[in-house]
């Protein structure tokens, strides 16, 4: 059952990712990226990382992609003849995938046992309480730095846009 769901999510995640790159229509690309993110959330949920899965849906599939769609619709981008042909894109995609596969294979060959083995997750792994506790104790500094960074980006965007409005 778990394996079946993994293959299902994995297949559709790949389908979404490849489709996104291949599609000529910006809106179609955005929608296929949403499919991909949705499936990634499914994979996270299967790994017991429920909070990450929910956040993936809320933040990426929900907010970020709505914004992307919003911009595409606002600029009214219809079908575009791409700068690169479909063949080129396909070749590049195959090339990159092959490279990734070979690098992984070489690492596995050279240093067997170095690839992290699957471990049993700790008690309460992936629950809201566990993630929250980690965020506010061990990872407090990175968490705060990230939020300050985001705030700076937001203020920067407002200032950049304000001079034009």
């Amino acid at each position: 059952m778990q394996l079946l769901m993994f293959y299902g999510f994995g297949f559709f995640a790949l389908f979404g990712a490849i489709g996104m790159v291949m599609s000529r229509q910006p809106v179609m690309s955005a929608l296929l990226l949403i499919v991909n993110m949705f499936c990634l959330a499914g994979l996270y949920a299967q790994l017991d990382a429920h909070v990450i899965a929910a956040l993936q849906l809320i933040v990426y599939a929900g907010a970020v992609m709505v914004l992307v769609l919003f911009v595409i619709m606002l600029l009214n981008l219809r079908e575009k003849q791409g700068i690169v042909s479909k063949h080129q894109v396909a070749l590049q995609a195959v090339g990159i995938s092959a490279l990734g596969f070979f690098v992984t294979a070489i690492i596995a060959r050279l240093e067997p046992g170095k690839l992290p083995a699957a471990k049993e997750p700790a008690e309460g792994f992936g629950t809201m309480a566990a993630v929250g506790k980690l965020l506010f104790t061990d990872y407090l500094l990175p968490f705060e730095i990230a939020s300050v960074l985001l705030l700076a980006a937001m203020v920067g965007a407002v200032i950049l846009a304000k001079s034009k409005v």
Partner: protein
Amino acid sequence: MFDYTYLPEMNLIPYLAEMMVKIVFIFSMNMGVFAPLLGWVERKQSALMQDRIGANRADIFGFTVFGLLHTLTDAIKLLTKEDFIPRGADRTLHYLAPFIAVVPALVAFAVIPFGGQYELWGHKANLVIADLDVGMLYIFAVASVGTYGAVIAGWASNNNWSLLGGIRVGAQMLSYEVAMGLTLVGIFMVYGTLRMTEIGAAQENFFHWGIFLQPVGFFLFIACALAENKRTPFDIPEAESELIAGYFTEYSGLKFAMFWMAEFLEMVTISAVLVALFFGGWQIPFVSHQMLADFFGFLGPNLAQVVTMLIHVGVFWAKVCLWIFILMLIRWTLPRFRYDQVMKLGWKIILPLALINIAVTGAVILLVR
């Protein structure tokens, strides 16, 4: 988002049976009772509020049954209407959009408890379809996916009014999702959990209901929920006077009905969330689970639990119906906001107030404990 780990320890058959019963119950409640009947309720209520007689024309041999037959005629009309796809529209997306709108509205109910836990013949029944640890986050996630139905519909129709409607949906949902999440943080802080069943159980004491512990959060949340529901006063995405019907201008027949249904189902879900978080869920004021079970103790322990369960479920749905009624009351009372007013309300009023609410809640919790 389903916890497999505890499955092997349990007896699978009663577990699956319980699950099936719960899913069928919620599904039939939503699709069989609320989706068709809310249209009738809305008509009758608007007639009442506007001093009209209201839907009473459809009849079978002179019997109108309070206008209930209009529901039937509506269904027949929507089923037999021509399913129109405008020229130049993206056929696949145009077809897909209503489904994307209606499915999240249906599945969002999965984490809302419609009753407590009951020991029936040695089997522990927990009246919620999926008791998730992330609880409310799941509803936010599903709601944010539901936005795409309207956005895609607006895009795929190849109509400027639809497109404008779709863009407005995107902007409105995005703005209010942020605020809605923040308005509920206070509730999670007070109860110390996101799990809806635990929040429900914590409200057994009448004075621990969410409305008393988080009054500001309640009002902010109801405003955000109305905005997410896209109904008046927040119906700028489908403003008739400006955009014809907004994102579903180019929809007819059953697909139109699906958008309409999605809106009603969202209203049911919002009411259920309001009840579960702020109005004690299935709990009756001053009457605890134990008291009810003891009162019906003469029926034997199992039957007493069954009766208690039925009463709790009934109370939950009664509260939900009351809230649907109030939400409709708001709809028929307030005029539509302008686009800039909606944005201003979301970003400049609700968002800061929600942040202040979180800070104050945190300070109070620190002082009390």
